[in-house]
């Protein structure tokens, strides 16, 4: 399902002829109008093309910020969980600090302190989502660090970093992956939400969040301009969640199926 979205984002644009940024005078054509399956928007641009192209920035921000969150969060969490002691204390207090503030607000602060755009979105969302992953990574790493096989590796003279990467990481990968996929959905939600607030991807680049916001003006006259991108966002987020759920179930040794 997520794969379907990625596919749609990559090949989708090749399938439609309309230029998603090209204004025309055929504004607000209804669905099914000649040459425009889903009609046109308020600047006469093909809605289908915009929807397909609009997947790109959202997916890009979602994937990049999740990747950033994963690198930051999992890195910090693993270190904290494995090393324990002062390092753990410091890292976890930092994470607590970030967690003590609603992430939406944190992102707004970061994004508006920077410059709205892909890079600040990625940075903001990545930083805001990292603590959640770090917590999980730390818990898992601490659990795993107590396992005898880690002790055995220590006994075998394997050095710390190698133990982290070679021994522990593969064993954390399952649950972490599930969580990362869930984080992806949250990141997509944030990305759409921020674009909606005008802090995200800048027009005329098509983007679902911004499309919802811009379409909101036509809620009464052309509701599809809101409903379509909102539904697309929703579908993507739902898809991520389902995949995350399935992954978790599939990778959870406790699940009896």
């Amino acid at each position, binding site marked *: 399902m997520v794969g379907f979205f990625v596919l749609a984002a990559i090949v989708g644009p090749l399938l439609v002829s309309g230029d998603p940024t090209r204004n025309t005078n055929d504004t607000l054509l209804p669905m099914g109008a000649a040459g425009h399956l889903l009609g046109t928007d308020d600047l006469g641009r093909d809605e289908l093309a915009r929807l397909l192209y609009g997947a790109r920035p959202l997916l890009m921000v979602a994937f990049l910020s999740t990747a950033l969150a994963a690198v930051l969060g999992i890195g910090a969490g693993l270190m904290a969980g494995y090393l324990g002691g002062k390092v753990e204390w410091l890292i976890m207090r930092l994470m607590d600090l970030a967690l*003590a503030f609603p992430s*939406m607000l944190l992102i707004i602060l970061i994004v508006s302190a920077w410059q709205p755009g892909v890079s600040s979105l990625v940075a903001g969302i990545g930083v805001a989502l990292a603590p959640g992953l770090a917590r999980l990574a730390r818990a898992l790493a601490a659990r795993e660090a107590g396992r005898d096989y880690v002790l055995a590796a220590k006994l075998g003279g394997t050095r710390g970093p190698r133990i982290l990467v070679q021994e522990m990481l593969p064993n954390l990968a399952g649950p972490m992956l599930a969580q990362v996929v869930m984080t992806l959905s949250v990141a997509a939600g944030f990305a759409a939400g921020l674009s909606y607030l005008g802090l995200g991807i800048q027009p005329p680049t098509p983007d679902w969040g911004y499309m919802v916001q811009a379409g909101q003006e036509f809620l009464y006259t052309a509701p599809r301009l809101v409903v379509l991108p909102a539904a697309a966002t929703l579908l993507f987020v739902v898809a991520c969640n389902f995949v995350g759920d399935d992954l978790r179930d599939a990778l959870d040794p406790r699940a009896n199926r």
Partner: protein
Amino acid sequence: MTAATSTLTRLRGTPWLVLKRLAAVPLVLLGLSTMVFIAMRLLPGSPATSLAAGGTGGNQSAAEITENAEKINAALGLDKSLPDQYFSFLGDLFTLNLGSSFYGGNSITGLLGDSLPATIELTVAAMLIAVLLGMVTGIVAALRKDTWIDTTTRAIGTVSFSLPWFALGVLSIVVFGVWLRWLPVIGRLPNELDYQPFTNFVLLDAVLQDRPELILPWLEHLLLPAVTLALSMAGFITRIVRASVLEVLGDDFVRTARMKGLSSGAILRRHVLRNSSLPIVTVLGLQFGSLLGGSVITETVFSYPGVGNLLVNGILQRDYPIVQGAALAIALLFTLVNVAVDLLYLALDPRLRKA
């Protein structure tokens, strides 16, 4: 020696943990206020130019505006070096003086007094709705695991958890406010009602001031934003409750309860609920944060006079003291809720009580 040790042990028990939790609050707040302070100073745009150009910007010459902006900067203390500003900010913080708004000098404490109760009302109402909804659906899904009820509940839960709240708020306004005209769409109380806030918690004031007629309109105004906020959280709680109930159902002590010959209802009530509420309670604390985050958008959409609204306006106007104050208030609220959650956890799980 033993007597001394055991007193110490008792001291390290429950009250000790509570104290420790509470002692950490100011630290967290200090860290946060520092963060907000820095973030605000990084924002492009300054209140002075906006103020200086205010109203009749074009009539003044460039030189006049620059000069005026400098004067305003000085008046607001923005001309000082960042460390100076920071320390005076901290100093004020210690005396609980949150400063006053750049735009007209409203005291931040007063502004928070006006808006914090509204946000608390909103988020608590949303929380209650979400918990109620989520608990019921989650328990039903867990008990009917792998049936169509479970599958549908989970699917609906996941969808509602994924709902973009910005779209949800707008949609509910259109449907319930405009099409159906069932509910008011903006504000906290109708403007016709002459509400003189005392505690600024409407319910409390309605009782204190003996004005029962306030309650119905208050609830009407609260319903839409609260439900909008609650929906996505309810989906999340459904998932957690389901997972947690399932986990507890698999625990050995549930088997013991079955062995005792207890009915499944009694097992659920006496053994499963309390134990499965543990992870739920933790999640609630964190989720309260996302409620607060969501309230920023919800309050804007519903013109609901809460801290979220205050914060957004503050950011838009570069009104640093407001942003700092509001952020601090939100963080304080969040932190206190989490302390409360920890204490609740302590009350629910005797295992943690032993030192």
